[in-house]
């Protein structure tokens, strides 16, 4: 700690006269203002219209309300767990430890898109599956997948603008058709993607749903070579198309109830399929499908054999951030990826501090 003895470093210069001292003080003030201004500039204080994670999550909250303790999107869900059994085929694509032959434990969460935690189950609602693979050396791989074949938006801004355009009109309770039409007219990629999405009929339940990574990623092999990939989960359970009979249900939770019933009967399984991007396959545009080529590799089987309500599940309090990647996997140049990571974090932080309200699928629902 500094001693109190004093010493002058060198001869003191004569004190400044009042005017010059004031001038120098002013100069110091300007320097400090520049530093503070630079800090605030970096924090976005001078760009109030720029899209930030907070403004994005605000838009979800305006669309669906704030439901204490729930995710701002994909609010309704159940926790699951099981394991992934790698067949070793993935090791030539990526050095990630998850692809070494053998089992790793997996925690997951099935969900419906949207921010309403007690929304009625419906086959046309987006289905989500968040997964967390625990690798042997303490690493993790998290992925948040949906059942859409492609994503409707190229950029975070497009997604946000669509959220704003589809905001229900307070008078009619429905989105303004003019705004929706204007959005479509200025976003041909979204219109094209929605065409692809509508041509895929939804399956009857969660258990026979195929889930897709949507965004492209990069796999890095042991030699350091990198390839573009997308992944998907292909259900072992036979595909049954959703029918009018299955949709006209009185039970609001009929799809979750069916999932619980089937998982209690027998473990559910999916093949993890890696699609390798060919030259020309876009890695920065999730609205574009990659043609099904010969370059698809089945790298192992996901088995989910346990289901529980969010109240007891680890999955409720986890952020399925798609950029929690083990060594051997890396993000692509898709602008959605970093934005998803930022927005998931914002949603997680908001709900983490809120009182938790019971989920639509209760512990009793899972036991019955």
């Amino acid at each position: 700690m500094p001693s109190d003895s004093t010493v002058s470093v060198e001869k003191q210069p004569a004190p400044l006269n009042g005017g010059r001292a004031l001038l120098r003080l002013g100069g110091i003030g300007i320097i400090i203002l520049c530093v503070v201004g630079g800090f605030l500039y970096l924090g976005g204080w001078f760009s109030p219209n720029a899209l930030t994670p907070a403004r994005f999550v605000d838009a979800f909250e305006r669309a669906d309300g704030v439901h204490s303790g729930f995710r701002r999107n994909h609010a309704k869900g159940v926790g699951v767990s099981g394991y992934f059994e790698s067949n070793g085929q993935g090791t030539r694509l990526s050095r990630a430890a998850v692809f070494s032959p053998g089992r790793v434990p997996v925690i997951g969460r099935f969900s419906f898109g949207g921010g309403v935690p007690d929304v009625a189950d419906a086959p046309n609602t987006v289905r989500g599956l968040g997964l967390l693979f625990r690798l042997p050396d303490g690493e993790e791989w998290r992925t948040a997948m949906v059942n859409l074949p492609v994503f409707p938006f190229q950029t975070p801004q497009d997604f946000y603008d669509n959220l704003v355009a589809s905001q229900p009109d307070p008078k009619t309770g429905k989105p303004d058709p003019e705004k929706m039409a204007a959005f479509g007219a200025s976003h041909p990629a979204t219109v094209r993607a929605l065409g692809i999405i509508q041509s895929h009929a939804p399956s009857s339940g969660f258990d026979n749903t195929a889930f897709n990574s949507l965004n492209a990623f990069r796999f890095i092999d042991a030699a350091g070579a990198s390839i573009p990939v997308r992944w998907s989960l292909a259900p072992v359970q036979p595909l049954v198309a959703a029918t009018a009979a299955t949709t006209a249900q009185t039970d609001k939770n009929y799809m979750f109830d069916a999932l619980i019933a089937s998982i209690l009967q027998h473990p559910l399984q999916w093949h993890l399929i890696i699609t390798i991007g060919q030259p020309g396959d876009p890695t920065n545009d999730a609205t574009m499908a990659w043609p099904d080529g010969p370059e698809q590799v089945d790298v192992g089987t996901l088995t989910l054999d346990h289901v529980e309500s969010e109240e007891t599940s680890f999955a409720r309090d986890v952020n399925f951030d798609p950029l929690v990647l083990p060594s051997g996997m890396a993000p692509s140049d898709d602008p959605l990826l970093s934005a998803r990571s930022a927005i998931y974090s914002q949603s997680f932080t908001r709900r983490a501090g809120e009182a938790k309200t019971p989920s639509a699928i209760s512990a009793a629902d899972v036991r019955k």
Partner: protein
Amino acid sequence: MAIPQTQFTVLMRILHWLMAAMVLAMLGIGVAMVASLGDYHRLVSIHRPLGIAILILVVIRFVNRQFSTLPPFPATMSSQERLVAHASEILLYTLLFVLPLIGWGMLSAARFPIVLCGTLHLPPILPHSVMLYAFLRKTHTILAYLLFLAFIAHFGAVLFHTLVVRDGLIKRMAPWRVQAR
């Protein structure tokens, strides 16, 4: 009688300027990343290992300080001013130690992997609790703004002494060598 020391030791000055650059970068990255969508991942991937590096360096710096002789304050500083300067040093050391620790702790409470680079990652230091995460996350932001204010006060005081009082205060920490009289 030995010539009174006019400067901090070479190691102390290296640590000071190295950490000054790191902490300034850290504050800028921190405030930018929470407002960013496109650069969020890149920035947060630097923020985590840089924070841990600061935590390690501040411990080294604190231990080294206990074994070093410090140059005296200039005669131009009153005893109250010395008290304030000393208190601000304690505040800066405390924040540089506590901020990275809270960052590590909050990610632990969220069970978010604390990846430094490649497969290198840190173990969690707190139990899984999202309420605890939310509290620490808020604390991290508040203390980071406090650190920025403490930096501004420190920077402003040194500028004031160097440019207005002209007592050569900066020479104690100058990266170049200053000869004792």
